[in-house]
């Protein structure tokens, strides 16, 4: 036990001597309480994802900082446009018909539809066919769709990428007969 204490004292740290201890004490104390309540699964998802190389990010706390969604959307859009690395956290749920559980992806990790669809194909192990402006996706039973801000289910690929990232609330990969109505030109 004593050895641990001594090790702590000799631990190398950045910062002024004598100040860090107090800070750390307090941090430890407050962290014991339910502080990061409602942390989304973002941290773990990032490391689990094999596709899309997102740099590690700080855990996001629900409803923090206290900024309205309309303001958050403005900032995230601008960041996506000016950032080349991405990884700024436009997380949406992805469901696939028939799959037992959903996944979450960070849309800002991708620069366009090609990358996104490739990532989805790998994640769910399916293939999406080819996109045609008029007929939609041909050559596959699967149709990638998304729910937009208005609550409507839209075909992925119709609108410019930036607009898609702003308005997309969640993704759903439809399959089979249900997909037929959404512009699947099979």
């Amino acid at each position, binding site marked *: 036990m004593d050895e641990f204490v001594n090790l702590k004292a000799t631990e190398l740290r950045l910062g002024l001597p004598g100040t860090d201890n107090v800070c750390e004490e307090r941090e430890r104390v*407050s962290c014991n309480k339910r502080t*990061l309540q409602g942390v989304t699964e973002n941290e773990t998802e990032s490391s689990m994802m094999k596709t899309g190389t997102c740099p590690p990010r700080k855990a996001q706390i629900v409803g923090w900082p206290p900024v309205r969604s309309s303001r958050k959307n403005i900032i995230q859009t601008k960041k996506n446009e000016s950032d080349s690395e991405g990884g700024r956290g436009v997380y949406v749920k992805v469901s696939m018909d028939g799959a037992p559980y959903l996944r979450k992806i960070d849309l800002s990790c991708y620069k366009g539809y090609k990358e996104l669809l490739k990532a989805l194909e790998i994640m769910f192990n399916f293939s999406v066919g080819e996109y045609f402006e008029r007929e939609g996706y041909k050559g596959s039973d699967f149709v990638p769709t998304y729910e937009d801000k208005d609550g409507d289910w839209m075909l992925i690929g119709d609108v410019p990428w930036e607009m898609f990232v702003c308005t997309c609330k969640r993704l759903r990969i439809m399959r089979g007969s249900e997909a037929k109505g959404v512009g699947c030109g099979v």
Partner: protein
Amino acid sequence: MNYFPDEVIEHVFDFVTSHKDRNSISLVCKSWFKIERYSRQNVFIGNCYSISPERLLRRFPCFKSLTLKGKPHFADFNLVPHGWGGFVQPWIEALARSRVGLEELRLKRMVVTDEGLELLSRSFVNFKSLVLVSCEGFSTDGLASIASNCRHLRDLDLQENEIDDHRGQWLSCFPETYTSLVTLNFACLEGETNLVALERLVARSPNLRSLKLNRAVPLDALARLMACAPQIVDLGVGSYEDEQDSESCLKLQAAIRKYTSLRSLSGFLEAAPHCLSAFHPVCHNLTSLNLSYAAEIHGSHLIKLIEHCKKLQRLWILDSIGDKGLEVVASTCKELQELRVFPTDLHGGGNTAVTEDGLVAISAGCPKLHSILYFCQQMTNAALITVARNCPNFIRFRLCILEPHKPDHVTSQPLDEGFGAIVQACKNLKRLSVSGLLTDQVFLYIGMFATQLEMLSIAFAGDTDKGMLYVLNGCKKMRKLEIRDSPFGDAALLADVNKYETMRSLWMSSCEVTLGGCKRLARKAPWLNVEIINENDNNRMEENGYEGRQKVDKLYLYRTVVGTRVDAPPFVWIL
């Protein structure tokens, strides 16, 4: 006073407009209660569940204006799940059935439907003013009803609502004979706008004073609109994406020269960085500037604009202005009363756009400052103490340090002393939001000194129940207390149950209160609605004797005279 006839007393009461004062008047005696009842024009209901429409109508049969607020404040930050409540429909239906000559309806954080708007538009012949703030549940079809049917409409003011935009023709629903528009704000609409209908509407509205456009109104349309409405006092620019010397830009610059009445400028939802320079000619008259949505405009352009705004009283801006920019504000805007600085980097650890230095500069340079909302990455006690000394006149002080639990970045101490200095110096402080690393000590200060405090927002702060108790015992005028992620539990919650009758509401989320504690509270105080909001299915609230240990995720309680509400969704449990 009792020797005067009622009409005289009523005439005197007409000069009393504040609802607080009118409430006081009505308590003096039965006669005054009666006179006041029949003469009250504007009714304010801070919590739509505290009273019912029927009781409202019984007490005030003659009112013309109604203000209603629904969801708690933290709903703005997605802490209240969809479907929780705040439905305006029963209110509109009750008012429509009655004989109230409603002229104005102001709603905040309520759920509005197209059917409701349609009913509203058809039920009140003299309806003049609709103001919706942070509402949801309706579409442009509802707006079309208002436009079509409200012949005497003066104000249609939509602030930060979530509106389903059907890209319809709602603007063309205003009849050609309709010319009484004074305020039109549709900045929050996301879809395309019928520009032709908009231009014709503006051209036939000589009384138009306030026009706030959405992002779908491009520069050339803006130039044309401005050319036919030079009397506008309050302008919200939609989109401004053109090149600097384009024809539209030149037209705009020509139109701006006539804008001698302009006092308030906002918008720039889509903006090229250089666009602000066109507005320099009108800056010297501006009293209000809101560039908090203009994420593309760089700090340097903001600063150039602000250098011309010597009369500015209200400034909402993004932290891209930087400390240097705030120093320019401090040296230029000597009339500044309200400042809001919003973050551009939400996760902290990025660029330190504004720091404690900017806040200190503002406090030193702007003697009339009384309201501030400041998002920053770091703060020190020394800075806050200086701010308190410079600005003892704060009425609203909201500081949000982006990283929870962050201490004074120089001394690594909690920020108790800094906030303590603020509450001690600012004797008129009514609203306070605290952040950063804080112990129970700060709440001791708040309880001791913040005697006028009405609203307090706490996040990631405090150590024990004592913190919350200091506040509940000390702040006699507390009305709204909202707490998240802080270690306050049942002991604090239950210490003084009667306190909650003097408050509008209490919100506690991710704290230490248990189901057992909430149940005990509900038993002791039947005049409270104690709501447990529980979205997580796994966390089923069960009657299995473990209530004492079962933590409640979200608690929202409020006083009410009409008992348990009947419109609560399944995930809300009212004890």
